[in-house]
């Protein structure tokens, strides 16, 4: 179970794709839902929103950025290896309906999460303009897939190495100026989601974002993933992960994501040392 059957490195090995055997989850999962993965018994439980599912093949696809010990450990897993634990599908699916003109904004690995949602929105009959952002061209992922999933595609890079030179928010502003947009979906780093939501709030365009707080069980049992939405506390695992971008307290979310920064550094350091030692011994 939970065997990796395909694996791909993207963005110079900083972003990894795994296609994983998960027959039951692949049958049930809908765009916007997430799974929780654990590399081994001592590992952390890591929530990742699914990038794709293939019910015929019985697989799901996840795409993650290597940032700490747990994802470094995930990166070690090769085709044929199994995750120790995989559970899902968790969270509420995206509400997909025909609203007219939709703008999907994605950044970093948020693009992977955005992909099935974009595809579903287009399939529902929406005109979908997609805006993707990356720091530099080499870190951009899934351009072709997103092109196929969208009606129109814009790419932005912070350093101008590809597409528009600048942030996704600049392009979003332009698009909102030019035409009447019925819905914006923004998924990516917190600052990106925050500023997209500020822009769309001014224009009064409904906006939803997909949040990635720290979780433990992912089933509503622990309350670790609580976020403030419109002044009330919600659990992202069962009430989300998608929320009204105009109501989310992004600053609080960013702070809570930094809860264990020191521990995470320590853990990654220990892991790197251990791996280096092992390599020397080999």
């Amino acid at each position: 179970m939970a065997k990796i059957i395909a694996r791909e490195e993207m963005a110079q090995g900083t972003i990894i794709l795994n296609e994983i055997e998960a027959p039951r989850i692949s049958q049930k999962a809908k765009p916007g839902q997430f799974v929780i993965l654990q590399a081994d018994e001592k590992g952390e439980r890591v929530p990742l929103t699914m990038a794709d599912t293939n019910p015929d093949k019985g697989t799901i696809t996840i795409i993650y950025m290597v940032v700490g010990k747990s994802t470094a450990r995930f990166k070690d897993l090769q085709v044929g290896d199994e995750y120790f634990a995989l559970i899902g599908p968790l969270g509420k699916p995206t509400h997909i309906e025909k609203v007219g003109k939709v703008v999907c904004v994605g950044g970093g690995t948020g693009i992977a999460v955005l992909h099935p949602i974009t595809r579903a929105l287009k399939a529902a009959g929406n005109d979908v303009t997609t805006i993707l952002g990356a720091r530099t061209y080499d870190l951009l992922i899934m351009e072709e897939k997103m092109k196929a999933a969208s009606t129109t595609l814009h790419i932005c890079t912070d350093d101008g190495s590809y597409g528009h030179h600048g942030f996704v928010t600049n392009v979003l502003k332009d698009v909102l100026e030019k035409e009447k947009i019925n819905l914006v979906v923004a998924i990516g780093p917190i600052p990106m989601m925050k500023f997209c939501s500020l822009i769309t709030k001014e224009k009064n365009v409904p906006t939803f974002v997909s949040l990635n707080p720290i979780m433990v069980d992912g089933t509503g049992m622990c309350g670790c993933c609580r976020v403030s939405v419109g002044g009330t506390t919600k659990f992202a695992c069962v009430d989300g992960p998608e929320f009204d971008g105009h109501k989310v307290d992004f600053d609080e979310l960013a702070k809570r994501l930094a809860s264990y920064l020191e521990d995470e550094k320590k853990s990654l350091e220990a892991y790197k040392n251990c791996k280096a030692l092992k390599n020397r011994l080999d």
Partner: protein
Amino acid sequence: MAENKEKLPRVKMPEQDPDVRRRNFEEVPLGLTPEMAMKEASRCLQCKKPACMEGCPVSVDIPGFISKIVANDFSGAISKLWERNALPAVCGRVCPQEAQCEGRCIVGKKDAPVAIGYLERFAADYERKKGTGEVPAVAQKTGKKVAVIGSGPSGLTVAGDLLLKGHDVTIFEAFHKAGGVLVYGIPEFRLPKEIVASEVAALVKMGARIETNFVVGASVTIDELFAEGYDAVYIGVGAGLPRFMNLPGENFIGIYSANEYLTRTNLMKGYLFPEYDTPIARGKNVVVLGAGNVAMDSARTAMRLGADTVKIVYRRSREEMPARAEELHHAEQEKIEFVLLTNPIRFFGDASGRLKGMECLKMELGEPDASGRRRPVPIEGSEFTIDCDLVVVSVGSNANPLLTNSTPDIALTRWGNIIGDPVTGKTSKRGVWAGGDIVTGAATVILAMGAGRAAANSMHDYLTLGW
């Protein structure tokens, strides 16, 4: 003869020294020696109408197993226990015996009651340490398939009982390890996880299948389980939705629900970080809000994680604290302070969102409220602050809607708990039973087991006779 027996003093459980144990995760009570157990067992009067049994939610034959201990037949004792209880090593440790069997013990009317809990624990531990791996014999296969959702105390009881009666049992567990609250909630120092694992292993040996990492309600619905060939379903998923107090600042870093704090520590082994990957905040000055058993577990865990001070903050008085007397006693021995008649009103944090302290109000007891306890009333102008860098909110749980949302034809109370027949545990949905915290709201391990026992009997009738 009886006169003499009553004169023997109740055995004292050897324990780790409080000053040592408050900094380690090893079990606090060390267990009785065979000599101590036999001597204590001899205090039992072997009553013709044993009142102790009436106090036991699963009706263990208490005089029966105790008489085996007196006779130095420890294997006989465990067999007697197994007839009614699949988890004796657990129950001997975490049951509130003072309110159940021992609370009714006739010896206890004049003297200290027979230490039934210690003896149960002794018999179970003796068998486990002997390592014969013997398990109760199961009846001939009935060919009926049962799905048990949740591997906590009620689910394990249902599984054990139905296996004994010859049914096929599959247990579905959302976490990667079976045991439910016994593994994620109750700390190692009160219930070593190795014991839970061995009780679960016994069920597997009896034929149980355990599907971990499996969230019924998400990975599969109850109707789909029926379609896959299950004949009956038991829901024992626990309460599972932590309550917060809705106070300003409650999302500062360093404020945990007891569920999260204990799950990180116990199930994910945060206390062994960085050997295990899941971190847990090690607070210097810790406050636990609430005064139940879970609050005591949280406070004692914080002490073991190296806190300088640990305070229980509770809005009522000592008398109303709901935790077991033994838990309160252990907590006090470990230098946990009780700050009573005090209620938090808001939390303070720094610019990075980390908890710095909390503001509280002093309370006084007024007229009795709906629960019959005197209502705590705030004293005007009594605001004061407590400096703290970690708060554990332990004020109970609500019903988790994950499973019930996916099963709209199960009747719920207005609080979202499943309505189960109080005698049989039958729900409004044909072929489905429920018990434990998802029905009653947060309660104890043994009450959940009692509900499991009742449901298993009713399920057996259904599987052999019909609904």
